[in-house]
């Protein structure tokens, strides 16, 4: 059995943005807005006398599942934070967003580069998958600049004017660069220069563009040719030009940060400070060194200082305000800011989001134009529409259970020790499969040089990859849902976004479940039996058993390569630190010795995840040293992210309490992981700590690592796993996020009922309800029709249903534990009421047992989560021959409770039906609408309930 871990697709990380913001789409109604705002209460004292006439402005950006939000604070308003804009992409829910923002020299515009957090799991997405937009600071109007730029701490790069530089890393390891120059005023890309080197920290100066390449300060010519102008003292992590023609930069040299200025052909030192305590920000009128500035020269034109006691995230244009913390919480943003004038600090939170929203269209192959209504044969249509991934979505017999975190931890611990032998009964989760045991079906691979995978390392990978989700992340623990499949429709762009108007099954990734098992999961592949493919898609335990083998295979690849063993420290796999390189390879691949001829004679692990790669800030602390780090994971390599999650377990919120999803490892003598420093994988003879600025100046052997590296005495200092549950113990009980509404609907609250209610469920085969609620047969038919016109008959060349299915989800919520949901879209035309590619019409057709024109209360079930649309218009057709429906509009929000609501009371004829669709004026495709059970209570001749009444 061989399994490949690709360049790690995937629906991963969602990075928890402090553990909460990566909410599922199928969530309950948003919490009430939090605090009224964050502003200085006594601004005369805090900000000084002139605050009311100041034009100083600060901008901050932070993401959550709704997008990347920009906020602005103006000194004239006592630095009260207000929403500026929300930036996102049109598509299905993409998890949490992350990004970077700068303000242009004129102070009129903010430029943001942003991407879903999942981009940090994919080297290609990190290098060239982010969006860039410009936002008018006065109005919040956002304009799209370009799609497909680099997610990096130095991107975007503003300068003294409104000219802004953006980068795109090119090549498998990011060894080349596209440098884009954009005009924030026109929102146009003025030029794109291909640079045959890795260029980082660019800056647009009045006399041309500068940056760092090969460890040198370079000037970029009109054609992308580089001219080296100076050699910095160390590895630069900040480079900023001034309007006066100077370029300031700060480098890491050992434990020092060294500030230098290049001007007039000379590079001079302007100051030093502790490595993590001297930062450089560009502002109005010049640059500003911030932090411990006691050793910074004074009197340098255009270079001022600002004392700060802790690292800051942003500084206002004129330096009057420092933003020390901006972190997402549950539907809010927490801010800590400090006034430079007084040193006074304020903490608070504001509601997340607000301001105009820019939803950028995703790239991808456009859908074919509607052609002539050629009536292709059905067989041809079916072949064209055949998904590449083996296990389908929206299939009632494929409803994986979203496990709770205790179950995942238990399963990982059992798996790494070959004890994941829980007996799955026949028809487990209504799959129709035979009984099995996970690690009998997927036996553990042997770890080279003995030992096992440390459980916390595996937990960290599952956290990073999928937030420990086996089912679609629309489902919270306790829900069943569609399987979690990476790029099922082949419509994901480089940064992991799904374009809901593109389907290209030839590009499907087919990574399934909590560990994103990819190889063998395409239709027709024979690595796994068809039954085992379903087990991997449905059962988190089976998936963990299979996924662990992928990681072991990477370890073995490193340790058994024909070029020699690639070993860290003592090479003992029991120590988490010793897996650093295997995790590196797990993300960005391993280049075997045997294939070195294809890579210029080089082999090992590549440059992308080398911690000394200048795409990461050289002064960064370890990941999760500050929990807020989770909101900007683009500052770290994949191995650093994994080691961070192993050291600091991923967390979630229970009310206001932050709980870890799994236990910490057993640390060695230092009480934490012993991580390599950024120079540990340098292979250049010149690469001693602090020198040179970049050990990979050319695409040569310095850009690769293989062999042996030592940085820790593991027998005493490294971390080993810590088991929470006994090996061989029983599967942990499910901890549900929401209760399941298993209660029978009796209709007894309706005193006028003349008989039991009829209930039309959302699966016609109610035996497929798999959350365990007792359930009888459905009293009618439920259908979903996708696209407009529905089906593929009208236009077989480009049937619209194909696109509507992308944003259709089943969920183990709602009455008795099954419902469907999608999002509400606006009509294709202003006066229309249909949407060709996103329309979904749900129809409940009861089998009415009473004579025609018997009256019924019609009652809709609203799920605890997964339905939010506040004007859901239910169409009631009392007569199948009639042409005029009765419409009842209700708010599906329920504040997290399952609820029944009346749609009205009507005389119904046989063939009557109720319909609900997801098209409404003003919709933006981001609010849930649920299709849950509908009940019909017969009331004889008595008119009873009215639309919108609570049951």
């Amino acid at each position: 059995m061989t399994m490949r871990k690709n360049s790690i697709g995937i629906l991963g990380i969602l990075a928890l943005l402090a553990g909460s913001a990566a909410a599922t789409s199928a969530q309950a109604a948003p919490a009430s807005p939090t605090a009224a705002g964050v502003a200085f209460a006594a601004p005369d004292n805090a900000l000084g006398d002139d605050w009311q006439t100041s034009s100083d402005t600060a901008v901050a950006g932070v993401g959550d599942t709704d997008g990347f939000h920009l906020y602005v604070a103006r000194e004239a308003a006592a630095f009260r934070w207000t929403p500026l804009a929300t930036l996102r992409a049109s598509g299905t829910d993409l998890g949490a967003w992350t990004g970077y923002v700068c303000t242009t020299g004129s102070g009129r515009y903010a430029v943001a580069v942003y991407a879903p957090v999942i981009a940090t799991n994919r080297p290609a997405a990190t290098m060239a998958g982010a969006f860039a937009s410009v936002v008018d600071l006065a109005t919040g109007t956002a304009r799209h600049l370009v799609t497909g730029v680099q997610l990096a701490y130095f991107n975007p790069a503003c300068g003294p004017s409104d000219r802004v530089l953006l980068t795109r890393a090119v090549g498998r390891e990011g060894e080349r660069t596209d440098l884009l120059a954009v005009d924030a005023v026109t929102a146009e890309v003025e030029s794109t220069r291909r640079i045959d080197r890795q260029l980082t920290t660019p800056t647009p100066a009045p006399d041309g563009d500068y940056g760092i390449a090969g460890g040198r300060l370079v000037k970029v010519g009109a054609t992308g040719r580089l001219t080296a102008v100076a050699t910095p003292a160390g590895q630069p992590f900040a480079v900023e030009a001034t309007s006066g023609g100077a370029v300031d930069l700060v480098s890491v040299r050992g434990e020092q940060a060294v500030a230098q200025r290049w001007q007039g052909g000379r590079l001079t030192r302007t100051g030093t400070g502790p490595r993590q305590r001297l930062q450089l920000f560009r502002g109005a009128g010049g640059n500003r060194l911030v932090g411990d500035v006691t050793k910074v020269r004074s009197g340098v034109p255009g270079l001022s200082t600002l004392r700060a006691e802790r690292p800051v995230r942003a500084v206002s244009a004129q330096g009057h305000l420092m933003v020390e913390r901006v972190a997402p919480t549950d539907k809010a943003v927490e801010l800590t800011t400090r006034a430079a004038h007084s040193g006074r600090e304020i903490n608070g939170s504001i509601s997340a989001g607000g301001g105009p929203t820019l939803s950028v269209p995703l790239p991808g192959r456009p859908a074919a134009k509607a052609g002539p209504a050629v009536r292709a044969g059905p067989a041809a249509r079916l072949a064209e529409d055949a998904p590449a991934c083996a296990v389908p979505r929206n299939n009632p017999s494929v409803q994986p259970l979203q496990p709770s975190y205790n179950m995942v931890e238990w399963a990982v611990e059992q798996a790494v020790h070959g004890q994941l032998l829980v007996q799955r009964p026949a028809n487990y989760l209504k799959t129709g499969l035979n009984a099995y045991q996970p690690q009998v079906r997927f036996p553990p691979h042997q770890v080279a040089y003995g030992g096992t995978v440390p459980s916390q390392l595996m937990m960290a990978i599952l956290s990073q990859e999928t937030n420990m989700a086996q089912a679609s992340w629309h489902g919270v623990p306790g829900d069943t849902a569609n399987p979690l499949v990476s790029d099922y429709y082949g419509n994901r762009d480089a940064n992991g976004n799904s374009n809901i108007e593109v389907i290209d099954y030839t590009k499907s990734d087919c990574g399934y479940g909590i560990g994103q098992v990819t190889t063998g999961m395409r239709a027709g592949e024979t690595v796994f039996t068809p039954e085992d493919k379903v087990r991997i898609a449905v059962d988190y335990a089976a998936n963990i058993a299979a996924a662990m083998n992928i990681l072991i295979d990477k370890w073995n690849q490193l340790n058994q390569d024909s070029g020699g063993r690639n070993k860290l420290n003592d090479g003992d796999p029991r120590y988490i630190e010793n897996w650093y390189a295997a995790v590196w390879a797990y993300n960005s691949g391993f280049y075997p010795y045997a294939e070195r001829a294809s890579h210029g004679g080089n082999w090992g692990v590549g440059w992308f995840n080398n911690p000394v790669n200048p795409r990461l800030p050289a002064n960064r602390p370890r990941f999760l040293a500050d929990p807020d780090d989770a909101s900007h994971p683009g500052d770290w390599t994949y191995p650093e992210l994994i080691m961070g999650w192993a050291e600091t377990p991923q967390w979630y919120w229970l009310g206001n309490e932050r709980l870890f999803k799994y236990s910490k490892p057993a640390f060695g003598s230092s009480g934490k992981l012993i991580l390599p420093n950024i120079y540990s994988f340098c292979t250049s003879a010149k690469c001693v700590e602090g020198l040179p600025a970049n050990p990979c100046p050319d695409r040569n052997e310095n850009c690769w690592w293989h062999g042996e590296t030592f940085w820790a005495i593991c027998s005493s200092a490294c971390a080993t796993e810590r088991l929470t549950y006994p090996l061989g113990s029983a599967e942990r009980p499910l901890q549900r996020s929401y209760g399941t509404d298993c209660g029978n609907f009796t209709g007894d609250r309706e005193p006028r009922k003349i008989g039991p209610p009829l209930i039309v469920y959302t699966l016609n085969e109610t035996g497929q309800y798999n959350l365990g609620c007792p359930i009888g047969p459905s009293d009618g038919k439920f259908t979903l029709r996708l696209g407009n016109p529905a089906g593929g008959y009208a236009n077989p060349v480009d049937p619209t249903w194909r696109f509507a299915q992308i944003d259709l989800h089943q969920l183990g919520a709602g009455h008795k534990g099954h419902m469907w949901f999608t999002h509400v879209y606006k009509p294709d035309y202003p006066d229309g009421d249909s949407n060709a590619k996103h329309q979904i019409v749900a129809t409940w057709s009861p089998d009415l047992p009473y004579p025609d024109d018997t009256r019924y209360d019609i009652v809709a079930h609203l799920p605890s989560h997964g339905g939010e649309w506040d004007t859901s218009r239910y169409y009631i057709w009392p007569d199948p021959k009639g042409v005029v429906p009765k419409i009842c509009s209700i708010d599906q929000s329920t504040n997290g409770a399952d609820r029944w609501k009346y749609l009205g009371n009507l005389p119904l004829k046989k063939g009557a039906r109720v319909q609900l669709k997801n098209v409404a004026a003003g919709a933006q495709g981001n609010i849930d609408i649920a299709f849950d059970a509908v009940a019909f209570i017969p009331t004889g001749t008595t008119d009873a309930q009215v639309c919108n009444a609570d049951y």
Partner: protein
Amino acid sequence: MRHRNLVTMAASAIAVATIMVGAASAAAAGPDRVAEAPAAALASCSGESCRGKVAAEQGCAADAYQVAGVAVEDVPPGAPPAPHALLYYSPACDAAYGYYWSGNDGDQSNILVQTLYPYGGAPLPEDEIGYPSRGRNTFYTKMVPWGFSIRVCIRPLPNGNDKCTEWR
């Protein structure tokens, strides 16, 4: 992720789901039904087993009722019934079938029953159940299981535009 009120269930859903295997189609946990008199005790097929069969021959026409219809041609008021198509549903047989009144001596059309999978997906082949019409007459299609989205379409030969009922 967002979490509310985590509730630890005494029994896992998995365990409960296991207990329920195969139970759903047997004893209903819901309330008893009070229905009209069963209309079609003579029904000899149900759902999928009715596919392709003639309703009248299977005892499925007795309780069938119209659930959709469409006028294929407009005619002046007072004229004989216009050509029209209907969709019938038989609860007893859990099946549906189409009806077509062609109205014209020279009529030549294909009568099609189109079906979509109940929860989306590729359309099913459209022309296995219907017939070509010839002349002025009534036509019934064969049956399809009710558990799909269904409609009847009339397609004038050789190149006319479809006239279809609403989906049911």
